[in-house]
């Protein structure tokens, strides 16, 4: 049976960021899927080597707009471990609050995008309108809607006062009932459920085998969450946390897991706001970081985010490596696409909450014959000129 190849990307209305898929399609069923990454590569890791640790705080934030705080948190925790400083408790609470507020805004964004990918635009508009509450709240606390710049070595840069705490509690109470409404809607609206129930099935063994992380894994029944396995900012010690999973393994399960995580985040935020300890919010941190290497992990909105930092005793890091959660979820996506309908492609891709800005780092492909090629600027330039010269473009 003859199949033809549909290109989805790099520019496609279904994708929010450039990715290149090649889907081999037989009628309306996808037979094979292939993936190409790298369209959003900006050289973050190389840039990080030529900037000081203080400048890198802001560089790490700009890896992604939606999970900006998660990357900063990961980096800061790693560097603080190298520096060997202890952060005051109030600062830990505020860090946790900002991380959970960011999770709320990201999951509301995802609900809207999922609605838009299946053509349910009203759902999209409503969730994004309610997301504005969180954005205004974050603007109130930190001065900016994205890239909060609240983290610094030794604590946080701003403190919360009574008026802000009151506003936060009101906003969270409002969002709680809106999220309950969206969860109800997502599970009872017939056209929405028809598009997401049974779509993109990822069984538990496959999720474990393909190393899925984040809500994708938790929706297949795999209870993995860095907040529980490798706690940071006080999870498990003084901030209560319960992992949310679902057994469905399909897109409906992912919607349910994210909605449940939203409710859990509201609980965490309310606990923090009501039990904020007194104290200072930062301690002084040295400018030069002692030698060493460290791996730090946080649970970003999309899954497990790993940063590896190696320092050589100067003000600038020696090597920084970032492994974003979406990179771990792509093999699972390719597995889910095989055997799915063409019409389900956008919602399956959106189901893992892809963030290409997070994902695209340097991947070194070793030649199977044994020689690893490293190209310098001149070779790359010459190759590009020959390539385009042959195609007469």
């Amino acid at each position, binding site marked *: 049976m003859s199949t033809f190849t549909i290109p989805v990307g790099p520019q496609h209305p279904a994708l929010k960021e450039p990715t290149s898929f090649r889907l081999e399609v037989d009628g309306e069923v996808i037979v094979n899927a292939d993936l190409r990454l790298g369209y959003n590569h900006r050289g973050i890791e190389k840039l990080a080597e030529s900037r000081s640790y203080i*400048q890198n705080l802001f560089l790490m934030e700009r890896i992604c707009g939606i999970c900006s705080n998660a990357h900063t948190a990961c980096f800061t925790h790693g560097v603080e471990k190298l520096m060997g400083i202890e952060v005051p408790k109030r600062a830990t609470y505020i860090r946790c609050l900002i991380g959970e507020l960011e999770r709320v805004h990201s999951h509301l964004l995802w609900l809207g995008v999922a609605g838009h990918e299946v053509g349910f635009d009203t759902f999209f508009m409503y969730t994004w309108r309610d997301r504005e509450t969180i954005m205004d709240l974050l603007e*109130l606390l930190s*001065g900016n809607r994205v890239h909060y710049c609240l983290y610094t070595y030794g604590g946080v840069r*701003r403190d919360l006062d009574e008026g802000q705490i009151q506003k936060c509690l009101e906003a969270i109470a409002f969002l709680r009932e809106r999220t309950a409404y969206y969860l*109800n809607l997502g599970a*009872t609206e*017939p056209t929405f459920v028809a598009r997401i129930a049974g779509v993109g099935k990822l069984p538990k063994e496959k999720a474990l085998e393909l190393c899925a992380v984040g809500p994708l894994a938790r929706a297949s029944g795999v209870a993995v969450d860095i907040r529980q396995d490798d706690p940071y900012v006080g999870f498990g010690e003084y901030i209560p946390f319960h992992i949310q999973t679902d057994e469905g393994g399909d897109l409906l399960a992912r919607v349910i897991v994210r909605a449940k995580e939203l409710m859990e985040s509201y609980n965490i935020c309310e606990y923090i706001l009501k039990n904020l300890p007194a104290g200072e919010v930062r301690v002084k941190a040295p400018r030069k970081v002692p030698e060493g290497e460290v791996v730090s992990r946080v649970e970003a909105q999309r899954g497990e985010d790993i940063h590896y930092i190696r320092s050589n005793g100067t003000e600038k890091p020696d090597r920084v490596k970032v492994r974003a959660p979406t990179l771990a979820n792509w093999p699972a996506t390719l597995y889910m696409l095989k055997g799915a309908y063409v019409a389900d492609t956008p919602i399956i891709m959106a189901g893992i909450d892809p963030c290409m800005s997070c994902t695209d780092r340097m991947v070194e492909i070793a030649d199977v014959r044994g020689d690893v090629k490293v190209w310098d600027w001149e070779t790359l330039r010459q190759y590009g000129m020959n390539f385009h010269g042959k195609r007469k473009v």
Partner: protein
Amino acid sequence: MKLQLGAMVPEVMKHLFRRTATIQVPFVPHPAPGNIRGTPVMDPLKCIGCKRCEMDCPAEAIEIKKEYEYKNEAGKLIRRFSMTLYVDRCTHCSQCAESCPVDAIQMDQHYDHAAYTREELKFLYKPEPMPVVAAQPAAPVADAPKA
């Protein structure tokens, strides 16, 4: 859960009579909230020229230049520095204000910098011209300030 046809209809019909969530900027003024970080403003009288702000700025948007130095009547050495702020590079993170050990940089409330040329977005904070001090032989360091 049981499927319900037209689950959204009551909510959608209620919205017909509600005010829209749109804020019609720029026809309606929409001021920034009070605690935005804004743009750095430097006081040349306080600056000691340690260049920590220049080192710590993640966007390399600050240039500190030595304007002149002289000895005043009391015999104290006075150094004056100017700051060139490239506002088109500034990310409004206020790290410069934090790093400054003498609090020479304050943040104002402006975030809206739109201009037609890049030159308009180069803010220059210069100290006052060097005073002519009669008694002491002044030795101004000739660092021609960039226009």
